[in-house]
């Protein structure tokens, strides 16, 4: 087994959750790496969509922004941003939406808007961008984040995007017909919502991770599934693919600055 970092494990675990038939709405950072590792390994025909309007992209390097030129150059087609949100996202054509979080609660509700009160924030975060509608229009949502008690919290400061709300059938009660968060991929574990309560439950821990590691980095009392599995370690192919992608990306984006 090649040695690997927790972040690499997280990215590779996320990539494994994707299949050849998926149509993914990709964010920047870990989701982008995961989606492209999937494309370069077991899911060569996966469709990657970035909200800049690029549909079916196959970038050689990871984009720094969601609107990098290479996304357009390698796309099947590039549409306007209103069309992206109307026909493609709202139209219900996306199978998996990836979201990250500054704060996350046990029901997959996400805050990326403010720390503190909205009107007088302690920290003004970037805000939701596409997330409020990604969270409800994609057939299902995968969340990726590194575990930390200040990120995985009992109560989020702002509902940037809706996961399972208060849990149970809260989505259905709001008339939302999509599944919402079905998978949380952290640097330590894989979590899936309990079928009834919708509370995220640890179903698999990454190699070498203990229950204490998971609980110590999570702000709510963690539930573990019966028979928690061990996430298979990254294969050599997965790790090499990810590292090559990141090395190519580094070279491409480390280019010289304009005058």
């Amino acid at each position, binding site marked *: 087994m090649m040695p690997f970092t927790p972040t690499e494990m997280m990215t590779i675990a996320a990539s494994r959750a994707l299949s050849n038939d998926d149509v993914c709405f990709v964010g920047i950072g870990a989701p982008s790496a995961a989606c492209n590792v999937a494309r370069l390994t077991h899911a060569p025909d996966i469709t990657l969509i970035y909200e800049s309007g690029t549909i079916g992209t196959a970038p050689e390097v990871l984009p720094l922004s969601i609107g990098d030129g290479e996304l357009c150059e390698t796309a099947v087609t590039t549409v306007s941003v209103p069309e992206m949100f109307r026909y493609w996202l709202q139209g219900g054509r996306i199978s998996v939406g990836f979201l990250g979080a500054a704060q996350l609660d046990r029901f997959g509700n996400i805050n990326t808007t403010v720390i503190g009160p909205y009107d007088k924030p302690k920290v003004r975060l970037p805000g939701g*961008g*596409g997330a409020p509608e990604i969270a409800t229009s994609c057939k299902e949502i995968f969340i990726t984040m590194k575990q930390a008690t200040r990120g995985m919290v009992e109560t989020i400061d702002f509902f*940037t995007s809706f996961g399972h709300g208060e849990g149970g059938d809260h*989505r259905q009660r709001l008339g939302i017909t999509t599944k919402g968060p079905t998978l949380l991929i952290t640097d330590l574990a894989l979590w899936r919502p309990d079928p009834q309560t919708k509370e995220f439950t640890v179903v698999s821990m990454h190699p070498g991770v203990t229950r204490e590691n998971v609980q110590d980095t999570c702000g709510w009392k963690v539930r573990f599934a019966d028979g928690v599995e061990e996430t298979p370690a990254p294969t050599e192919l997965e790790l090499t693919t990810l590292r090559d992608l990141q090395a190519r990306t580094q070279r491409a984006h480390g280019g010289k600055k304009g005058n």
Partner: protein
Amino acid sequence: MAKFQSLKDAVAENLRDGDTVAFEGFTHLIPHAAAHEAIRQGRRDLTLIRMTPDIIYDQMIGMGLAKTVIFSYAGNPGVGLLRRMRDAIENEWPRAIETVEHSHAAMANAYEAGAAGLPCAVFRGYRGAGLKDVNPAIKSVTCPFTGEELAAVPAHRPDVSFIHAQKANRRGDVLVEGIVGVQKEALLAAKRAVVTVEEIVEDFDDLHPNLCVLPHWTVTAIAHVPGGAHPSYTHGYYPRDNAAYLEWDKISADRDLFTTWMKANVLDVSPEVFASRVEAL
């Protein structure tokens, strides 16, 4: 009818204190040169509309031009936060600003509705989300056929929109290609539209018929500003200056450093400098 003029004149004639204005470009084609000209001309009390305020509004906010910012994602894409915008919100430096916050879907639909001459945009949005509790501009309508409650937001109708594009022809038609973003909608939604272009060509006879071309009679003014999107990029001309985006994180972290940088790189220069900025890319 499109008037060819210097960027200085185009901004002076079309942007007034107190205007509601959009500088659009979705990562690609962000009209930085036009924003710098607005900063040099010292416009005040602007209501700035933009999906992703980005460096371009971080600079305008930090220089005190903005009264209100209507937006959906206030980050430095791929880098981090917008430090000047944060400073204005958290510490009212250099002045307090009002924010009107939406989702990307709402902003895109609001531009679309503006271009379509409608008073509001109707879409399936904000379900379960917190913004509708803090933004009174988010309301709803009920589908008269199914009873479904749909989100409604006011259409964007800027007094003036600024975009950067690849080309104009001599008649004043404008070509936008690649990641076209919301530029067509931002331009058609506005009362006045100013376009900076990389190049002015004789005609567009060889273009594919389905490309995004804005006819000359939809454009108020065109200014020829090669490199005018830097550090954003122009598909077919020069790439994104990723290093400049990373550098901005440092410059914007400190008020003095920011002020010094703006003087040297914006206030004391003219639009011609953009051509040289993209030469080495």
